[in-house]
């Protein structure tokens, strides 16, 4: 079975103080840590499990610059067999459609039974690339998968649907599935595991290699323009209890009593 998994390198946001870059279109990245997008970790795990069950080849692909190689290495350490980096200055400023266009141009020349994407990213958070890529590839897709089994040319997918329900559906291969968190328990990747794949060659492809004109990708090929980033309006802010831990906790107990919480 040929399995393709699309992954993105994203900043770790949990405790980071974010600063908008001078051009207003991105973040200042100097102090940020980066890792694979959380949802893509589930997608890679699902891809590797399919290979372990059915045999075959897992190919990990990302659109990014050379720094994005680290998430490809991570996918290789988890069990992907090969990795492709779509890297070209022309890809800059891409909207989700332009990212899907680049991925499509790469994937259409590869054999595939299942394409896996994450449901959404933790940075851009649009949740569009997978569904757009499926439409460009003209294959059936299922979004927000929480269960996946492949058997006899068909995929049986459990996914999150309207009204907090889940539905089990069947689609023929080839198909595209987007992974919701909790689809599986991704395996642990050790530093040693990463080191083992340090020498695996990563194929790099430019827009030209993919047969794409520079005007079809990146900002020029986008249907949506990012005008700028801004900090959200302050709105209501919590009363932050300052001072020593004991003082803060004492005030909190006070507040809880006032509000009938105790």
């Amino acid at each position, binding site marked *: 079975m040929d399995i393709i998994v699309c992954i993105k390198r994203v900043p770790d946001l949990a405790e980071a103080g974010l600063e908008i870059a001078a051009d207003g279109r991105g973040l200042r990245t100097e102090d940020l840590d980066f890792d694979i997008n959380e949802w893509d970790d589930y997608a890679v795990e699902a891809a590797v499990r399919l290979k372990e069950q059915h045999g075959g080849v897992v190919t990990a692909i990302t659109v990014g610059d050379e720094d994005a190689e680290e998430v490809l290495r991570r996918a290789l350490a988890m069990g992907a067999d090969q990795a492709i980096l779509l890297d070209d200055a022309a890809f800059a400023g891409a909207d989700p459609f332009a990212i899907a266009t680049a991925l499509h141009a790469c994937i259409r020349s590869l054999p595939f039974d299942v394409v896996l994407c994450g449901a959404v990213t933790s940075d851009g958070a649009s949740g569009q690339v997978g569904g757009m890529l499926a*439409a460009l590839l003209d294959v059936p897709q299922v979004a927000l998968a929480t269960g996946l089994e492949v058997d006899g040319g068909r995929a049986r997918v459990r996914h999150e649907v309207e009204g907090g329900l889940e539905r089990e559906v069947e689609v023929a291969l080839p198909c595209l599935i987007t992974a919701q968190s909790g689809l599986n328990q991704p395996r642990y990747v050790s530093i040693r595991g990463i080191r083992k794949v340090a020498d695996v060659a990563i194929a790099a492809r430019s827009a030209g290699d993919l047969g794409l004109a520079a005007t079809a990708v990146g900002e020029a090929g986008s249907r949506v323009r990012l005008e700028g980033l801004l900090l959200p309006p302050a709105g209501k802010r919590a009363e932050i209890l300052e001072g020593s831990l004991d003082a803060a906790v004492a005030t909190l107990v006070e507040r809880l009593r006032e509000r009938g919480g105790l």
Partner: protein
Amino acid sequence: MKQVLVIAERRGAVLDEGVFELLTAARALAGGGGRVAAAVLGHGIGGLAAELARGFDRVFAFDDERLAEPDGDGDAQALLPLLARGGFDAVLLAHGNLGIDLAPGLSVRAGMPLLADCLELHWAGQSLAGTRAVYGGKVHARVVAAAGGTGAMATVRGGAFAPAGPGTVAGEVVAAALPAEFAPRRRPLRTLRPEAGEVDITQSERLVAVGRGIEDEDGLQLVRGLAAALGADLCASRPVVDKGWLPRSCQVGTSGVTVRPKLYVAVGISGSFQHMGGIKGSPFVVAINKDRAAPIFGVADVGIVGDLSEVVPALEAAIEEQKG
């Protein structure tokens, strides 16, 4: 003066309430003299179409047994001719599970730009423009659809617009036919309801919610202690449930349980829209988080910035002391 189409979502035999929020957004975008239409898909949906026609000027009702279950892949095929015919300046969907499943593919097939998960929408000249939350809600992005004369699609965040009240429009219901080439590619096998948990947190008056900040399963013990001191039930954000530390029935949020407590203590939770979307009834919200910039402090009433491994035991002790 614009033409706006809203794609309604249904839950079994009822409309998703979100459609009336989309109606508010659509009316604002249509402007005076503009018209708003709705599309609804399903089987035996005459009643739903009539309900929509009280608020929308026109309702396209796709009524067919092959549409019995919502299916983002098949529904896109059904809707494509309506969009391809042109004439809609904007097409709106809720950014819920169906919108996520349906909108990206439909936008590509219809050749329309798609603005995802918008908090606000307006026209920038002739182009649809909006604001969306990125980077876990810590930053907002302003986005504009490329001008192309095709109209643009947008998915809209739940709660971003106030729902329109009961309408008196007496709109026209149009029976919309499926395209001849309609061939759904998904076969629905069964629909699963979430399993009920031991504790029904929808009934809880006090909740202590635990998030990814606990780092490991041992952190749960700490928070259990606080919950016990407060006489509260324990619930969680999705990552804690995904890791298998607590059952799915404990997950609060848009893909979990909706709760209506009087007190909600969020421990190590960043305050994502999907989590907060499950909390109704304006409880008193307490946040404990070590990141001063966490979005949870934008929705909580009171908070302590600190490491939960220190704050939680101290709070538990102070509460116990108070009880005497």
